[in-house]
């Protein structure tokens, strides 16, 4: 295995495009190293993108959104007051990935590129409407985060393409988001079900919403019907009941060692309700 530490994304993309064998990008490394160790992947070329200037930075964009570097570790997100005030759901999703130690390394981009339907940080990003900036051998493009994963362990990135930043839109006024996951322990588990909700309100009424479920389908799933169920409501019991139904209906989970189909479906509804309430309270500036 060859180890590369390019100085620019263009260089990284060229390296990857020209590499004859198996290539892996290394950001935080918390997934790649586990796969290396288990010999699940045996790359010929490992391209460490953390040495590229700017990758460890979180910055404001011109439109009052956020640009998050690909090497920004979870702990850095958690410590960033401005980002946390705008997108608490995105931050709390990332903070649920792994232990304190893993938080010192794991990145949003890595969590996304791992392609796991249970990735804790992805539902929050999708709910927020985040976009990935991709650098490829022929230039840059941007793609909605929900279009990156295509199935367990697979992404829509083509050979030589590398995510060079994640972009969060401006939060704007009266918005709130939240992410919740279900695990049997209190920490250190992979989500059995995850749910992120982002919404905006006018007064007590929800005017826009995105509801996203994790671990209930081959990819993280944006559920427009669930959003519809609460838009135009004040999140009353009827809206919550409709949300629950829509969330459950969107599930096509599997039975596996982490949970059953029935359990995942049921809990998806529970988490949708609970996450929506938190996001709603945040949007209204209230206590959580």
């Amino acid at each position, binding site marked *: 295995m060859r180890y590369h530490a390019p100085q620019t994304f263009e260089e990284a993309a060229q390296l990857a495009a020209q590499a004859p064998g198996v290539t892996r990008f290394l950001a935080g490394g918390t997934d790649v190293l586990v796969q290396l160790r288990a010999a699940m992947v045996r790359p010929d070329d490992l391209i460490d993108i953390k040495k590229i200037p700017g990758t460890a930075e979180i910055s404001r964009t011109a439109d009052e959104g956020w640009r998050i570097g690909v090497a920004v570790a979870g702990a850095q997100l958690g410590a960033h007051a401005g980002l946390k005030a705008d997108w608490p759901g995105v931050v709390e999703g990332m903070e649920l990935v792994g232990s*304190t*130690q893993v938080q010192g*390394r794991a990145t949003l981009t890595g969590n996304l590129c791992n392609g796991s339907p249970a990735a804790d940080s992805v539902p929050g990003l999708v709910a927020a409407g985040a976009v990935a900036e991709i650098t490829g051998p022929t230039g840059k493009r941007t793609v909605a985060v929900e279009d990156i994963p295509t199935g367990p362990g697979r992404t829509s990135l083509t050979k030589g393409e590398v995510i060079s930043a994640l972009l969060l839109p401006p939060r704007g006024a009266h918005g709130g988001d939240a992410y919740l996951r279900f695990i049997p322990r209190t920490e250190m588990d992979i989500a059995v079900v995850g749910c992120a909700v982002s919404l905006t309100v006018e007064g007590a009424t929800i005017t826009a919403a995105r509801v996203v479920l994790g671990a209930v389908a081959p990819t993280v799933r944006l559920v427009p019907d669930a959003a519809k169920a609460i838009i135009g409501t004040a999140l009353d019991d009827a809206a919550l009941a409709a949300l629950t139904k829509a969330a459950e209906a969107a599930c096509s989970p599997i039975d596996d060692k982490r949970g059953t189909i029935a359990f995942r479906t049921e809990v998806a509804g529970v988490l949708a309700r609970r996450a929506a309430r938190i996001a709603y309270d945040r949007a209204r500036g209230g206590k959580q």
Partner: protein
Amino acid sequence: MSRIHVTTTVNGDTVEFLADPRETLLDCLRDHVGLTGSKEGCGTGDCGACSVRLDGTLVCSCLVLGVEAQGRTVETIEGMATGGELHPLQRKFIEHAALQCGFCTPGILVAAKALLEKNANPTDTEIRYWLAGNLCRCTGYDKIIRAVQDAAAEMRGAA
């Protein structure tokens, strides 16, 4: 596979080693630098026995490549006592019987030290969540929490 020359600072000393790029920082510390205080309990980031600080950040050294340590600063359990003087956490772990087999202990001490630098007065719950990635199979964690609290109190008193 060709090895890569790595120069890094470990517990204040400059060290050099040749790393296969597939080797983790944990492998390099244990097999090339001769520091076996950091332990491997899982190799997958799930147990925390390999906890070290990398440029001050608490990480699992099994999830860092040895070559990534080039030019960085690494702190391990072997550097925790200064000048023959135990860190209060080390003393309190012994006093409170916060270790049985002791295999998890180096990682827990390194992690707990990082916590107390960030939060000098943590609640029990904060300690438990901070240490959730440090598995201990022997103690049930009770005495570990007490030892961390007692060390924190002593350090606050001394500060």
